[in-house]
């Protein structure tokens, strides 16, 4: 029968706790770094989600898009036949074409024109899930010539959005007959929705046989992956097949990896990381320097370098934990603040992944500082305490 051994004296904790003001500064430093990382990732996540959250309002289970398309506002059209071919596949209930183009929208007050992104569809198709467009009856207004719905999220520079407002799009008369909330990715400042017939009028000579995005609805209970595989098998290489999560991921990747957005916020996270590392290093280094004689004494009385190594790393991890918790709490508060201040258009949302990711970064940051500063403690010469 072995008795449980009582724990060692937690030297790391006592050393940290001993100098309260210094501990406070250290924790504040870590908290600040944690907060910066959360905010950078939050802005990045919010931007990426605004660039792709319109897909949530698209009524499709599977999407067809040209392999040369980059994201929704930079697409290459593909032949409408692909949709007809797709409709023959087992498990496919309905296929719907979506047409996109840019037009010049004239602000009726300032008379200044600005590029507006246009979605066009057949009003008998349930392409959109927004409450303003979810029944055939609500979409009927679009069937009149030279009409369009305008996005409430369009920038104020596009002018007023009152129903019945008349202005010009590409030097052609247009009447606003409805509003909705959608957005058009990162590139579009404002969006319109019109019928495919009006699309023909505004963008002549562009034919409706060239589709920008194909929406596929599946039979209830159909397996999306299986249908996707069948589509890929049947369709020629001028279209790619994505499920909804896949196409969102593809566009997020486009914005994060191949534009400067990901770089900018990634750099922000990196800078926060470095700042945090330096702060923790400074604190640990000063602590070790102040206690060098004591550490050397420990070595003199028979403690190994490994014990000192563990002590310093423990101090680093403790700082990480103590700084992370308030950092997370502050970040949650600021996320809420940013969300409310932008009336929900900047969807700053904490994700479980981010909570874990920043925690890992924080521990790494402190451990790294610990590793840089620990050398001085481990190499403390026990003979020097006699000098």
């Amino acid at each position: 029968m072995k008795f449980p051994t009582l724990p060692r004296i937690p030297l790391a904790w006592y050393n940290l706790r001993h100098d309260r003001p210094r501990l406070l500064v250290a924790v504040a430093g870590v908290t600040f770094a944690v907060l910066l990382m959360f905010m950078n990732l939050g802005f990045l996540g919010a931007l990426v989600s605004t660039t792709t959250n319109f897909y949530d309002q698209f009524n499709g289970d599977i999407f067809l898009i040209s392999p040369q398309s980059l994201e929704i506002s930079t697409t290459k059209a593909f032949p409408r036949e692909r949709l007809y071919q797709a409709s023959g596949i087992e498990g496919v209930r309905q296929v719907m074409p979506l047409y996109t183009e840019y037009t010049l929208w004239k602000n009726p007050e300032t008379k200044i024109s600005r590029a507006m992104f246009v979605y066009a569809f057949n009003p008998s198709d349930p392409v959109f899930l927004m409450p303003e467009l979810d029944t055939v009856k609500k979409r009927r207004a679009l069937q009149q010539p030279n009409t369009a719905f305008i996005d409430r999220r369009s920038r104020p520079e596009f002018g007023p959005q009152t129903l019945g407002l008349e202005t010009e799009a590409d030097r052609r008369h247009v009447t606003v007959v409805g509003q909705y909330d959608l957005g058009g990715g990162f590139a579009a400042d404002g969006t319109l929705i019109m019928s495919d017939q009006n699309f023909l009028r505004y963008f002549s000579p562009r034919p409706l046989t060239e589709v920008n995005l194909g929406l596929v609805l599946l039979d209830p209970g159909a397996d999306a992956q299986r249908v996707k595989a069948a589509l890929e098998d049947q369709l020629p290489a001028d279209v790619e097949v994505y499920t909804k999560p896949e196409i969102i991921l593809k566009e997020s990747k486009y914005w994060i990896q191949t534009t400067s957005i990901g770089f900018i916020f990634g750099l922000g996270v990196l800078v926060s990381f470095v700042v945090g590392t330096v702060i923790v290093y400074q604190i640990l280094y000063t602590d070790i320097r102040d206690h060098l004689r004591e550490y050397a004494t420990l070595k003199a009385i028979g403690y190994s370098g490994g014990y000192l190594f563990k002590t310093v790393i423990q101090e680093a991890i403790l700082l990480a934990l103590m700084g992370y918790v308030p950092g997370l709490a502050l970040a949650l508060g600021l996320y809420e603040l940013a969300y409310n201040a932008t009336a929900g258009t900047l969807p700053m949302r904490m994700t479980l992944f981010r909570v874990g990711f920043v925690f890992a970064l924080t521990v790494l940051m402190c451990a790294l500082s610990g590793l840089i500063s620990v050398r001085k403690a481990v190499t403390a010469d026990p003979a020097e305490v006699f000098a």
Partner: protein
Amino acid sequence: MSSALPIASGSPPDVPTTSTEASIQVRNLSYFFGRGDLRKQVLFDISLDLYPGQIVIMTGPSGSGKTTLLTLIGALRSATEGSLRVLGQELVGLGSRQLVEIRRNIGFIFQAHNLFESLTAAQNVEMAVELTGNFRGKRQQAVDILSQVGLAERADYKPAALSGGQKQRVAIARALVNQPQLILADEPTAALDKQSGRDVVTLMQQLAQEKGCTILMVTHDNRILDVADRIINLVDGRLESDASPQQYADAHAPKSLDQKMFMM
């Protein structure tokens, strides 16, 4: 020459019975600092035996190599030339890991107390007890030894709340708690006033007698020379004299002023 001091020869003046094994046995020990052109010899051919129960004071001018010898015996440096047996173990040629093991059997008392400001007196002592793996009894052991040095009431005070003498007594308690057979002390009274210094050495003397351990102390403090059984004088890295306190005092009395006096 008027000096009556015998030159160190490896046979101390007050040798106990020959059956007792020396706790420190130094033979022809030399030590160098630096390498290559900067190599400088600081200890020359030292031979010395210290026996259990002895308090030995090592004196000598600064730079004479006392501290170097003390750190070599304390396994804080590795010796390379000659032979150095401490508590029956040859230190010459040992690796740093083995030296750490040796150090656990030695009690160290430093000029500065070197206590952790963040730990209480008892916890500072417990840090030493933990080395033995005794976690269950560490608190009791620490409090017991603190009582022996007269600090039972102060066990839970941090160093900042203790006087200089009390801090040094905590450091002594830390050195003694594992009942080492050898205690090495470097100027333990230098930072203390006369009374505290006297208390500290009396305490060490008592403990040496009770536990039968060897105490080797470097000091310049003439006020405490009387506790020594032997006084070793080191000059320029060589063992200059090895005498009883009485002989030493006679030799250094003002009336017999000689050049050695000025080396002190």
